[in-house]
Each structure stands twice: as structure tokens, then as C-alpha cells.
């Protein structure tokens, strides 16, 4: 964890409203009604001038001229509505000044405008379009100072805003900026002592600090924005590279980290609109906007190997989906990357290659968050790299790594699947009615193998929107000649009466026996349990994880909300086309859910059939095996 991270958690829960809610009563501002007012989250967003930049490239929605930043909130970025004192937020009113909102808000914006111009001047289209937020912080901070006298209702929030802003400011400053800040402070203190009759000494120093800080970070930020070519920007970029990979389960409601991640981002993701409050800690981006962008950049992006790039694009577009497929594709891309890799001079292979893999991983994360199996595979790869003896030559190391990856894929996925199939077919008897949900590669193999063995059974495939992956499974099964039934998940309690066994796949199984799988799996498992139908989960051992998750909320993945609002093939169903404009409507498209272990009868792995309570034993054994490899 970042030691500099401010303990925001202390302040947040007091005011954060979690869950679905209607926006509070309208506040008499003349801001555009179409502006998003998602969050009565009282955390004052650090103003983010990068968003300005993005938004300026789009037609601004409404709002008075000069208030480009308000327009920001009117357009696609919900984060912005947080970032800026959005019109509908009553909490922000003390900040903005009751009845004086226009004026003070506007007063902040010229600075924003200044930032914009500065940013624009700094260079065409840098790889990373986002500037640091410290600039913005300075603004809000300055405003805070001005607001100090009118602490109205919500003074706690304001105090918190202030504290947080100052902390955020500190977070975002890099070393150079902080040094500049320190200098400024010393100078200010000296000045303050000299003057000696300010209203509050701290206010002065703070003001001065803010003033100085504004200038210093701006300078530094511009350079860093300029793709770290200038010397002044070298330090932040180097630091960034050191902490290259964001924590894989980064909480996306932590502004400082989001901004840091954005600075490094290769893929230009835009935040989605109308985000559900409960899932604010998960990343949600507008889908479909990055693909052309990335395709255009294909030949420009040196840091990312073309195979990795290709795989990332395939993830983004949804061409590759399914735990095993994604994992294998990623590992094969890494194989290519390692094959083409050469150690730069004065660097050790181990460290440099690890850093390179980490950068690829962060690129892939930006395209689509990692699944747990991919995380395990990456950990394996990194441990193999770390274990390379230093005496090996570069080509030997590379070939050893490539064969390691090859073995991993073969043993942990292909052979494991064979073992799983062998174990699981013993549980299929003649006359069985087997139900499966979605499309799992392991379950498909089991069903086909059982059919080849001549067992008499029929299959019920349960499917659900929006991905409708069951259709693919259905097609493949019917081609081979199995007798199948197809239904949607809303009929699962109806069809469960006929079912004798339920076979489910899993994206991962956690240490407490919780099965983490595609959304809807928990529903099917619970219905099966209530009908006393045994639920068999088929999962390779490399997908097990020592983490524990109690609900589906704390860690998940958010998909494209537009997929929910549109029904493919039914153009007449278009009631939700304008959902983004509706303030009190949020669409939630979860990708995963967690099934508690009580509903799972048995887990079939390559180690055999185990009860859900024995997962930690397998995880322990598995990690021990890794050490021996």
C-alpha cells in the first residue's frame, strides 16, 4: 500500500451514500438539467483538468459559456460530476457559496481554463492525455480557503474537503513538486513572520503555498504530460515506471490512484456515465470508444509488443472470452514477447523482463480487468523469471521461460481438463438430466465425453442476457448429437424440477469454497440447492485462489451498460436508449458473481473430487508444487 496514501477511509463513510438512491431535492442553480448528478457522495472531487481536455474535444452539452468544466459534467464523465461541484449536489453548496454559485464556481474555472490552454500548448496528442490532478487540487484548495468564512451547513464536509484536498494534493505531488512546495513554504513562513498581521498565519502560508504550488506543479505537469521527454518530468515518469503495475484490484473510487493509473495509461478509457454508487470502486468505462483509437496506435506503441497488443484488442472487443481462452491467449502472447525480447545493455534480464511483463499486464488490465486465473498465471510466470539462474545466457533463459509457459499451459490447463473430464463422467448416469449454465469449456468437454462413452442423458442449457453465451454451447452440443433443451434463467426454477444434476464452470474458486463465476451462476446454484439437486463445479486447480470473498460486490467487473439497454435483433425495444440522460436511472451490468460454498456439493478438479471445504488444502499443495517446479 502506498505509504503516502491519505487515510480517507476515516472520513468517507460518514457521508457516503451507498446503494441506489434518488438525487436530493433540486437546488436552484441554473445549470444544465442534463448534467449528471449521480453522486451525492460528499467527497469533493479534485478538479481534473484532463477531463476538461477530453471534454473539449467533444461538443459540450449545454451550460453557459466559459463554464466548460460544468459542461464536462454534462457529458460522458460521471467522475467529473464528482470532480466538479456538480449542480445538483447540495453538499457542494457551501463550497460554491449559497446563491453565489455561479460566481465562485466561475472563479475557479478561469484557472481551469488556464490549465487547459497550458495543456493544449504543451503538445499535440500525447500518449497519455491526462494531466495530474495537483493542478486541480490547487484550485479547489484555493477555493476552500475563500470558502472558509462561509462555512454553512455541511461544515464537516467542507473540513473534510479541505483536509482531503490537502492530502490529495500531497499525494499527487511528485518529489520535484514537493520540493518546490517546501521551498515555497519556507519562503512563505519567512514572509509571514515578516508581515506578522495576517488573519490566520496558516491561512497565509496555505494561500501562498497554494499559489506557489499551482505554479510549480503546473510547470512540472506540463513536462510530464509531454511524455516525459523533458528532464523536469523525468523523475515523475521514472517513479511511475517503478510502481508500474497498479494493484490488480485497485479500488477505483480512490481518486489519487485512479489518476495515477491514468497517467500511465496507454489505453485512453473514458469513464462511463451514470455509475452505480455501490460499484464505484470498480472501473467502468465507455465501451466501444477505444477500439478505433487503439487500432490507430498499433504502430506507434513501442512499449507494447504486437502480440500482446493484439490480445488486448481481442479482449476489448470481446473476441476472446472465457477463462481458459483468455489465459492461454495471454500466455502465448507473452511467449512471443519473450521470444522477441532482448535485454538492454546494463540491465539484468530478470529485472528488466519482469518490468516489461508488468507493463504488458497493465496494458491488458486497461483493456479488460484480469480474471483470477490470468492473475495466477502471471504470478507463475514472474516467479519463473525470478528463479532463473544468473548463469544462464540470454537465449537459454528465454527458451527456458518459453518452455515453462508451454508446460504450464499443457499441464495446468489441457491435462487438467482431461483429468476433470475423467472424474466427472463417473457422476453421470443413464437417464440423467443435466443442467448447465452459460458456456464453460470444462463442462462442454465433460458432456461430449460422456456422450461418446454412450451414456444416455439429456442436457438443459440455461442462458442469460446480455451475453447469451449458452447459445454457442448449445450449437456445439447439438452438432454432436446430444439432446438438449434451451431456456433462459428466468425459467430455471421451473425447469429445475426435472433436473438430476447441475454442472457449472467457474472462473475461480476462493479459499472459503466460494465459487466465483459468471453472473447468474449463484442463482442457478441456489435454485438447485433448494430442489436438492447436487451442484457440481468443474474448475482446474490453477484457478484456485487464496483470497476470500463474502459477496459479489467488493470485487467484480462491470460490463458495458449499453448491452443491457439494447436487445440485439429487436430494434423496436428502444425504451432505454436515452438512459444516460436520465438522472435517476443507472444501468448495472455485472460480469461475475460469488456463489457461497453451501450451495456447492462437489468441486471437480484435476486433483479429484473434493468438497468445497477442502479448497485451501489444494491451494496450499498447489503453491508448494509451484515452488518445486
Amino acid at each position, binding site marked *: 500500500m502506498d505509504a503516502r496514501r491519505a487515510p480517507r477511509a476515516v472520513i468517507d463513510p460518514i457521508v457516503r451514500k451507498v446503494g441506489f438512491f434518488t438525487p436530493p431535492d433540486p437546488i436552484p442553480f441554473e445549470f444544465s438539467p442534463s448534467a449528471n448528478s449521480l453522486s451525492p457522495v460528499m467527497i469533493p472531487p479534485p478538479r481534473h483538468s484532463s477531463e476538461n481536455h477530453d471534454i473539449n474535444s467533444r461538443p459540450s452539452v449545454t451550460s453557459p459559456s466559459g463554464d466548460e468544466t460544468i459542461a464536462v459534467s454534462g457529458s460522458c464523465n460521471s467522475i467529473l460530476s464528482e470532480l466538479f461541484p456538480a449542480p445538483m449536489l447540495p453538499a457542494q453548496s457551501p463550497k460554491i457559496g449559497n446563491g453565489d454559485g455561479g460566481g465562485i464556481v466561475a472563479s475557479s474555472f478561469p484557472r481551469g481554463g488556464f490549465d487547459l490552454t497550458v495543456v493544449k500548448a504543451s503538445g499535440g496528442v500525447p500518449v497519455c492525455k491526462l494531466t495530474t490532478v495537483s493542478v486541480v487540487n490547487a484550485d479547489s484548495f484555493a477555493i476552500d480557503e475563500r470558502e472558509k468564512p462561509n462555512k454553512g451547513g455541511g461544515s464537516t464536509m467542507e473540513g473534510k474537503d479541505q483536509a482531503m484536498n490537502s492530502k490529495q494534493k500531497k499525494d499527487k505531488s511528485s518529489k520535484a513538486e514537493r520540493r518546490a512546495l517546501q521551498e515555497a513554504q519556507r519562503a512563505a513562513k519567512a514572509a509571514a513572520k515578516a508581515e506578522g498581521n495576517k488573519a490566520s498565519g496558516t491561512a497565509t502560508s496555505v494561500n501562498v503555498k497554494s499559489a506557489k504550488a499551482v505554479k510549480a506543479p503546473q510547470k512540472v505537469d506540463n513536462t510530464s504530460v509531454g511524455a516525459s521527454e523533458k528532464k523536469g518530468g523525468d523523475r515523475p515518469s521514472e517513479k511511475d515506471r517503478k510502481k508500474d503495475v497498479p494493484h490488480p484490484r485497485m479500488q477505483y473510487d480512490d481518486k489519487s490512484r485512479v489518476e495515477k493509473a491514468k497517467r500511465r495509461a496507454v489505453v485512453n478509457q473514458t469513464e462511463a456515465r451514470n455509475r452505480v454508487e455501490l460499484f464505484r470502486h470498480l472501473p467502468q468505462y465507455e465501451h466501444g470508444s477505444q477500439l478505433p483509437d487503439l487500432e490507430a496506435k498499433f504502430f506507434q506503441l513501442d512499449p507494447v509488443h504486437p502480440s500482446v497488443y493484439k490480445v488486448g484488442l481481442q479482449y476489448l472487443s470481446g473476441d476472446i472470452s472465457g477463462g481458459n481462452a483468455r489465459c492461454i491467449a495471454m500466455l502465448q502472447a507473452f511467449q512471443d514477447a519473450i521470444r522477441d525480447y532482448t535485454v538492454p545493455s546494463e540491465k539484468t534480464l530478470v529485472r528488466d523482463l519482469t518490468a516489461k511483463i508488468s507493463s504488458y499486464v497493465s496494458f491488458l488490465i486497461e483493456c479488460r480487468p484480469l480474471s483470477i486465473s490470468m492473475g495466477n498465471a502471471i504470478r507463475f510466470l514472474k516467479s519463473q523469471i525470478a528463479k532463473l539462474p544468473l548463469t544462464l545466457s540470454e537465449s537459454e533463459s528465454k527458451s527456458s521461460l518459453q518452455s515453462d509457459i508451454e508446460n504450464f499451459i499443457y499441464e495446468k490447463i489441457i491435462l487438467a481438463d482431461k483429468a476433470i473430464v475423467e472424474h466427472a463422467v463417473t457422476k453421470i448416469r443413464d437417464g440423467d438430466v443435466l443442467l448447465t449454465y452459460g458456456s464453460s469449456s470444462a463442462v462442454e468437454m465433460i458432456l461430449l465425453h460422456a456422450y461418446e462413452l454412450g451414456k444416455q442423458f439429456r442436457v438443459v442449457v440455461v442462458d442469460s442476457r446480455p451475453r447469451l453465451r449458452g447459445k454457442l454451447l448449445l450449437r456445439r452440443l447439438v452438432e454432436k448429437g446430444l439432446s438438449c433443451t434451451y431456456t433462459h434463467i428466468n425459467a430455471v426454477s421451473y425447469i429445475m424440477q426435472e433436473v438430476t444434476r447441475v454442472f457449472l464452470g467457474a472462473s475461480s474458486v476462493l479459499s472459503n469454497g466460494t465459487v466465483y463465476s459468471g453472473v447468474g451462476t449463484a442463482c442457478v446454484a441456489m435454485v438447485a440447492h433448494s430442489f436438492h439437486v447436487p451442484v*457440481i463445479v468443474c474448475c482446474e486447480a490453477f484457478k484456485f485462489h487464496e483470497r476470500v470473498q463474502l459477496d459479489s460486490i467488493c470485487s467484480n467487473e462491470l460490463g458495458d451498460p449499453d448491452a443491457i439497454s439494447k436487445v440485439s435483433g429487436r430494434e423496436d425495444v428502444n425504451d432505454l436508449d436515452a438512459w444516460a440522460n436520465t438522472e435517476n436511472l443507472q444501468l448495472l451490468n455485472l460480469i461475475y458473481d460469488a456463489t457461497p460454498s453451501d450451495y456447492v*456439493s*462437489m468441486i471437480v478438479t484435476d486433483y*479429484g*473430487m473434493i*468438497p468445497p471445504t477442502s479448497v485451501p*488444502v489444494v491451494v496450499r499443495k498447489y503453491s508448494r508444487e509451484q515452488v518445486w517446479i
Partner: protein
Amino acid sequence: MESEAPTMENNPKISAYYQTRLAHFGVVSTEWLAQAQSATNPLLSSSTDSDTDKDTNFSVIDEFNRWRSHPDLAEAVAAIRALAAVISSSKASTMMQLEIELKNASDTLKAWDTTSISLTAASDLFMRYVTRTSALEFEDFNSAKSRLIERADKFGEISYKARKIIAMLSQDFIFDGCTILVHGFSRVVFEVLKLAAHNKKRFRVFCTEGRPDRTGLRLSHELAKLDVPVKLVIDSAVAYTMDEVDMVIVGADGVVESGGIINMMGTYQIALVAKSMNKPVYVAAESYKFARHYPLDQKDLVPAIRPVDFGVPIPLKVDVECSARDYTPPQYLTLLFTDLGVLTPSVVSDELIQLYL
């Protein structure tokens, strides 16, 4: 009984395991016993046929039967002792040969009664235990062999003493004034109760009849000899008496990977009633009974048939449920008393994984 005879011949062979138990503990009608014996005769002859293939006079089945005739000895322990005898009387000269011989012997034993879980489990465990030793690293075959014999004997000893260990461990759970419900006649449970009586604990026992074996009668007889207050209840009266009961202790024919048990028919029923009335269900089972099965429901077991004597002739058109045992899922069991300690059902799988993987 003529009406029964045709049904008997149509059925697959009777589980020999239950015949043994019957012979030892049950109260049976002589007619049934005669039929049972006639049914088993082909079995014995087949086993001797296979043994004539062997060069030596040694036959593992004979050895097994010799041990098994002891009423106190668990079948699995008899198997273990027989397999240990195989090693000591083996004429093999290399380790591989010895292992092959052992494997053959173990397969023969398993084939003798395919329905007995503890037999299969014990044989497998024995093989793993013995062949996993570091003794195999020894260059000298003879010393390795003696090491193997040593381990085999030790395993036999442990298994034999398992009951004593279990009895000791379970003493803490029997408190003064408690009422225990037992089902049928399990030698392990009897050992537990015997030791408790010996330790001057004051408790009383409700003993189910245990149809169709009616082994409960034998148990009540034994317990009465120990001056333990015993009450016989018919199987249907379990729910009726469950209010007064403090705990249920049952044995097991086999403990499966999920942590559930396979035991005499009626155990599942008792466990269900006990669970719904919040009474703890304790299982006393030796560790060699841990088997690598994983039944999902009652029908998932290898069927073990045992004929039911209703005392009156049954018309041919009427079908009789003849299964001898049922499966109790782990959620109805509280604790397992084993020679490895007092365990929760989920530990069974951990132990099996450690042993087999």
C-alpha cells in the same frame, strides 16, 4: 421359504460383508442362513480357483478368512493382516515384484467383496502406507522387505488398536446422566460404551432394533451384561424418543470424501431427525475407513443387497427395497471420532488429499 428363494436367485449376490456381520451378531432365521451359505459357496470356490494359480500354497483369501473368523476383528483389519502376511511369505526377489504381488493380492481381496467400502479403503491405504516408505531407497532387498513387514505390522497394530484409541477420545463427550442413541451393533461404538461403563459413568442407552439384521438385540444383550440401562426401540420410534436423547453415536461402514458416512440402513433417517431436533450426531470410525468415494445422493453408492425377512411370505409381484446401507451427508454429522483424533467432517477430505496426492 419357496417364495423367497426365486427372489434370492434373481438378486445379485448378497453382500458377503453383511453375511459375516449376520453370522457374528445377528439373530437370523436358519432358513435364511442356509440360503445365504449356498449363495456364498460359489464365491469361495472361485476364490480358491484363482489362488491355485499361485505357486505357493499361500492364499491371501485363506489368510483373510482365517483372520476374519475372529468376531472381534474388523474386516478391514483382517485384510490388512492378510496383506502383511503376503509380504512376509512372498518369494519375490525385487521390490517391483513384491509390489506387483501385493497389488494382485489386494485386488483379489477387493474382488472378494466389491460392496465393502472399508475393505477397499483399507487395502488402498495399506498399499499407500507401505509402499510410500523410505525403506524403498535401501539397496538391500531383504532389509527393505523386513522394513516393509515392519510397517505393515505396525499398520495392522494401529488399526487393531484404533478402537481403543477412539474409545478413549470419546470419553469426554459422554457425561453423567446422558442418554445415548445407538443404531444397530457397531463394534467401535460398543467399545466406546464399554469403556464409559468401565469408567463408572452413569448413562443410559436407547438402542434401535436395526432391522433387518436385528443386530440391536445383540447389542442390548451385551450392554445389559455391563449393567448399562438399555432400552430397545424399534426403528420407527426414533423420532418419538429423540426428545429424551442427548446425543447419537453411530459407527460407519465407510467414510467418504465429502465427510459423510455410509452405514447401515436407517442411519440417514436418524441423522435427519437428530439434526432437526438439534441433537449432535457423533460417528465413531477408524481412519482406514476413509474411502475415495464421493456419492452425491443415495443412489450413487455401489449397491449392497441384503434380503429382508418379513416373517411372512411375500407375493412375487411385490418388490422389496433390499439395500443394506445408506449415505448420510456431512451436514448432518457433528463430529467424527477417529484414531487420528476428533475431527470435523470436512477434515476427511484433507486427510485423503494428503495421503493420496
